[in-house]
């Protein structure tokens, strides 16, 4: 339509034509003929009409538009429209636009905020509300990752402006906006703390507003609580955040002398001092509503709660400043006015706040109201406890509070309903951190009362609740002697409870299982700390020692018939496992009971092999510190080596997947580790004597090949060149070794010779090597083994199934083949060849036996067997012939 209008206008534009045919008539100057009376005025007046962006359907094609088809620019213009509805619609449109096109917000965020900030002080309530929603849901989340400093600074000036607006509504809303800013950009509080606090102070002073508009006030106060909670008030929190920083930074990075944070807060101490009386007065103004109204409505409760929380935070900040100021006077608290505020504030709090404590409902109407009073009282108690760290309250007040604390801990001041319990749990948390200090301060009768109540909570609460965690941290503070390293004596009431707590810890650890790793970690850390300071002079050392009898279930416990029940240890995270393992070091006498359950854990296939080696490492440290008996230590290793299940049992896994899940490599590493640990014990010959019989006993039980090999390796590591084996030992060992050699040969594929893969060679070597070492050190052993082999063949030929090693060879031929392969293997090794050459007659004897066998009962054998024996015979013969040629018989 617009277009056609424009067109028609154009047509009308016509130049008045002047005829060329008519001659110009010269007239006398200065005179003019009057126009004729019937003349019509043909003059047409026209003006250009500028209609911006009326015809821009094409222009908008590439642009982001809102639902109503308006661009960002249009919407921003409309936000300053004089009609409030248009403004609101524009804001809605912006929200819509940004949700659809987040990139639009990112590229134009400064322009957007410059326009939007004007609306912070808008007169219309709905517009402000819409703006708040827009900022909260779209703008701030969208700009989160960017550098927010300049962004926020653009807004803050307008917020402060609105805070001093004439209309109360606008002012309260401004606090809400500031709250939003702080939520998304916490440093903004420290930047503008001075102004904000001043504004809060002003608005709280004008108390005629509260009672009218509690809802608004509530949100403003919530903002104050949020701001104040940014004040540093807890030293531990600051420390821990610093600890986390370590490791990522450059070591000698340049740092400012003054930490930025505290310098930001140091200037506002005075403002905070002024704020406290205002808050207290404000709190008092709510009293009438408490006492006269039948029930405490939610809004005034929230207001009171926020006020109290604010006071609490401010007091906490002062306390922090005092502590901080002592070692390094970084903060400017030590000015001359320190004593003054100390005095004024504390007297104010004493008179106006603690004086009215405890707040009691006039009549018991509902549980909800009871709970609300409980919450308020708890916060007042917290303020009191904070204050009592630096002022000395009068005795009667202390009594009153102690009485209340005890009741609160016992849960008698709170309703019994389920919601009441939840409220109690949530708020009693606030008191728990103060218990350790309180226990140190108060007289002994109160001490035992408090401790009893505390212990009741500790025992009663759910293992995975946050209450338990708070209890644990309080316990840590009370258990671990502080800087003076003084332990309580037995007469102290504290001591009895300490013992109770310590005894509860292992149980708790098992109850927690593997589902709550963070809680488990806290308990384990506490146990470790306990172990570290439980030296022989400490009264806890006995308790710590006894703990190993209850800790076994944490690792594993053996049910009857060899079934093992694994405790939570195996499934915990690496950090927790590390803590648990380190705790083992501090048992001054780690007994076989706990070692056994740890050993079962180590044998579990689920356990990470890194953890396994870590356990061995720590146990070795404990052993060298004299915390484990040598017999227990050795039997721990023997258990590991003889019971470790190597998977798969087949040495050469046929399938790729088998090779992947194989833990043979781990076992080899384990063998090496155990060997090095055993050789580090000290006098090898003594250790050897202890171990000799143990290993023989294990070997005679016929463990799988891998385990047997590991045991033999241990023997070899501890042995030396002229062997330390006893006579009896050599005989026993020779019996075993002949069988072992058979087994090794059987496990290696027949076609070994032809393929001779390097890996096969290596594997073969791995199993044969300990035998070679033994033969080298004791030639007698070799002789016995050779004799036994010979007799084995004859034996098996007479009664094939009688011998136990014939499970591989169901007939003679296999048996003979095995013997020959074993001999050939020995012959391959140059060193053993030398030794074998000195026992040529034994080898020849075997050869003869085979020969005689071949000739004697050839009728019993089929063709294949006979061929096999023939082959074996010729192979052996070849070798035998070579023997004296290679090395002259010595």
């Amino acid at each position, binding site marked *: 339509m617009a277009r056609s209008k424009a067109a028609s206008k154009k047509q009308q534009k016509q130049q008045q034509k002047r005829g060329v045919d008519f001659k110009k008539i010269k007239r006398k100057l200065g005179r003019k003929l009057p126009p004729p009376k019937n003349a019509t005025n043909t003059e047409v007046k026209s003006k250009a009409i500028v209609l911006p962006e009326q015809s821009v359907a094409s222009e908008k094609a590439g642009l982001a538009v809102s639902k109503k088809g308006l661009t960002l620019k249009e919407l921003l213009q409309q936000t300053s429209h004089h009609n409030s509805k248009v403004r609101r619609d524009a804001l809605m449109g912006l929200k819509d636009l940004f949700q659809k096109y987040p990139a639009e917000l990112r590229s134009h965020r400064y322009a957007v905020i410059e326009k939007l900030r004007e609306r912070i002080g808008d007169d219309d309530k709905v517009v402000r509300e819409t703006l708040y929603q827009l900022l909260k849901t779209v703008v701030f989340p969208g700009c989160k990752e960017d550098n927010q400093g300049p962004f926020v600074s653009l807004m803050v000036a307008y917020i402060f402006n609105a805070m001093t607006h004439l209309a109360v509504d606008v002012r309260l809303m401004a606090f809400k906006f500031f709250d939003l800013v702080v939520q998304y950009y916490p440093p903004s509080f420290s930047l503008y703390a001075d102004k904000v606090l001043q504004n809060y102070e002003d608005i709280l002073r004008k108390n005629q507003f509260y009672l009218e508009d509690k809802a608004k006030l509530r949100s403003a106060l919530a903002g104050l609580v949020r701001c104040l909670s940014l004040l540093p008030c807890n030293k531990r929190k600051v420390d821990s955040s*610093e*600890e986390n920083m*370590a*490791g990522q*930074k*450059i*070591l*000698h990075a340049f740092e400012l002398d003054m930490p930025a944070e505290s310098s930001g807060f140091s200037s506002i101490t005075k403002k905070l001092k002024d704020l406290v009386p205002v808050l207290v007065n404000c709190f008092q103004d709510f009293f009438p509503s408490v006492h006269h109204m039948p029930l405490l409505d939610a809004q005034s409760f929230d207001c009171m709660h926020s006020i109290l929380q604010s006071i609490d935070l401010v007091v906490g900040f002062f306390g922090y400043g005092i502590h901080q100021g002592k070692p390094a006077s970084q903060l400017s608290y030590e000015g001359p006015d320190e004593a003054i505020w100390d005095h004024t504030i504390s007297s104010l709090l004493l008179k106006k706040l603690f004086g009215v404590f405890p707040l009691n409902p006039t009549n018991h109407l509902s549980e909800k109201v009871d709970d609300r009073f409980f919450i308020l009282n708890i916060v007042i108690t917290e303020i009191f406890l904070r204050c009592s760290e630096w002022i000395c309250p009068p005795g009667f007040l202390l009594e009153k509070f102690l009485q209340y604390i005890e009741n609160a801990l016992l849960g008698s001041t709170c309703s019994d309903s389920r919601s009441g319990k939840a409220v109690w749990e949530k708020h009693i948390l606030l008191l728990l951190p103060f218990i350790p200090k309180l226990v140190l301060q108060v007289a002994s009768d109160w001490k035992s009362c408090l401790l009893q109540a505390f212990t009741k909570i500790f025992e009663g609460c759910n293992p995975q609740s946050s209450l338990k965690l708070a209890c644990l941290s309080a316990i840590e503070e009370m258990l671990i002697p*502080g*800087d*003076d*390293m003084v332990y309580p004596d037995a007469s102290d009431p504290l001591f009895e409870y300490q013992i109770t707590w310590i005894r509860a810890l292992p149980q708790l650890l098992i109850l927690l299982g593997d589902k709550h790793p963070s809680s488990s970690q806290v308990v384990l850390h506490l146990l*470790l700390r306990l172990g*570290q*300071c*439980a*030296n022989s*002079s*400490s009264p806890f050392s006995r308790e710590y020692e006894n703990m190993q009898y209850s800790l076994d279930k944490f690792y594993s416990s053996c049910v009857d018939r060899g079934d093992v029940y694994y405790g939570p240890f195996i499934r915990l995270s690496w950090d927790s496992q*590390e*803590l648990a393992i*380190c705790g083992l*070091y*501090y048992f001054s006498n780690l007994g076989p009971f706990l070692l056994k359950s740890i050993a079962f854990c180590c044998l579990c296939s689920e356990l990470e092999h890194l953890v396994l080696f*870590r356990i061995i*490492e*720590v146990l070795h*440290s404990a052993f060298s*510190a004299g915390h484990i008996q040598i017999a227990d230590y050795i039997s721990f290793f023997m258990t590991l080596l003889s019971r470790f299940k190597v998977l798969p049992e087949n040495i050469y896994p046929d399938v790729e997947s088998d090779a992947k899940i194989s833990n043979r490599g781990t076992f080899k590493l384990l063998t090496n580790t155990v060997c090095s640990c055993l050789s*580090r014990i000290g006098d090898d010959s003594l250790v050897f004597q202890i171990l000799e019989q143990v290993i023989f006993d294990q070997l005679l039980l016929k463990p799988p090949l891998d385990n047997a090999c590991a045991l033999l390796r241990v023997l070899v590591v501890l042995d030396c060149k002229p062997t330390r084996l006893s006579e009896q030992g050599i005989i026993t060992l020779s019996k075993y070794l002949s069988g072992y050699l058979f087994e090794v040969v059987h496990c290696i594929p027949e076609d070994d010779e032809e393929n001779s893969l390097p890996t096969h060679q290596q594997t073969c070597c791995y199993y044969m090597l300990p035998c070679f070492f033994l033969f080298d050190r004791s030639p007698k052993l070799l002789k016995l083994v050779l004799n036994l082999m010979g007799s084995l063949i004859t034996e098996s030929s007479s009664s094939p199934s009688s011998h136990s090693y014939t499970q591989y060879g169901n007939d003679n031929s296999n048996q003979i083949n095995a013997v020959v392969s074993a001999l050939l293997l020995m012959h391959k090794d140059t060193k053993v060849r030398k030794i074998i050459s000195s026992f040529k007659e034994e080898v020849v004897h075997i050869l003869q036996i085979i020969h005689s066998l071949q000739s004697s009962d050839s009728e019993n054998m089929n063709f294949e067997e006979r061929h096999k024996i023939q082959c074996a015979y010729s192979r052996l013969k070849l070798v035998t012939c070579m023997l004296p040629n290679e090395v002259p018989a010595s």
Partner: protein
Amino acid sequence: MELLIASSSVADAGIGCWDLESGAEQLRYKSCASPPHGLACVGQRFLASSQLREQPSASSGSILYWSWSKPQVEVKSLPAEPIKPIAANSHGTYIAGGGQSGDIYMWEVASGRLLKKWHAHYRAVTCLVFSQDGSFLISGSEDGCVRIWSLLTVFEECESQRASHLYLHSFTGHTLRITDIVIGYGGVSATIVSASEDRTCKVWSLLKGRLLRNIVFPSVIDAIALDPAEHVFYAGSRDGSIYIAALNAESPSTSSYGMHIIGSLSDHSKAVTCLAYSTGDLLISGSEDGMVRVWDPITHNIVRMFRLAKGPVNNILVVRRPLYLNLGSFSNPHTSSRRHGSQLPPPLDKYVTSADEDVDNKGVIRLPSLYNAPRDASYISHRTIDNHLKELQQQGSSAATEMEVERLKHECNRTLQMVQQWKKMYENLHEFCVNELLDGDQVDGSKRNAV
């Protein structure tokens, strides 16, 4: 001219002593079975070592002294409880010892007096280190705690009573026994590196009292040595290799060993038990197999090897060769011993004695003297010093003022000369500038003409 000194836990090995440059073995001091960190060279005057107990039943350990010139033990002290780690400050005025109960003992060497004994740790002390300037003592314990003691605080009665704790910092980051501690240069802003059986080394800041870096190693670290420039530190591990860990820059985490570990030196078949760094840019390591290896840390090659014992080496010291100790005295110990006589201070006391009781018959700290000075007068009673002081107070004043006047006159002259010099310089400069300007104008003028 540096000497390499190594001791073992096996008694018959004794203390080996080699010339680091030539590799020639010097005297071997007999009958020493030292625990780790139990060997100290006291002010380059003599060697001291705490001893492992022969039988576990023996209630007390001992601390032995050897003078440079004699292989036999010369002085034997019996402290109140078994002492394992000992340390002496660089001047050799104090010896600190760490007890099994967690106590630290502090002796004055010259008199043997036990100056102070305090409860430092929950469990046995495992290593003790003095800072370079001797103002801090750093102790590590079996309970994994590292504590830093300012000697000023420890000895000042009122200071120690006022503070809630005696130590300056207490680092509880380690979970297991501390195996070694080293401290860098830089006085109060030095960095401290501690190693523990929990497989980590931690880098701490002495000034800020907090953890700077935590490095996890593949195996337990038993010994550390600091590179003199403090770019890296070397960590000898139980798996036999010496790892090199970065101390300053952010190292790429692509290293196969772990974060911050930039390489390793490896040859040891057995665990590395102690490390030392010599000023001649050599890294010296002692191993469990009884060998002492000297490495070139740049090429990662072994330069030399010494054999000490069959048992593990557990202490290595690198000290400057005392000047009076020439080779002749080694080859002929009898003559040298006759010449010097027994110069060693008295044995260390067992208990703390009250301060003033027997001060007169005890020696005082010798005024600092050269190592090669004749040491006949090393044992002066404290009366002598008192007399000295008195004399200085009475006579020193007039002489001092005269000297001061002389000095001022001299300075005045010097300053006048200086003024003259400055003036001349100014004139020169002025002249130069004027010339420059004039020249410039001429050039400009000529240019304009040319245009």
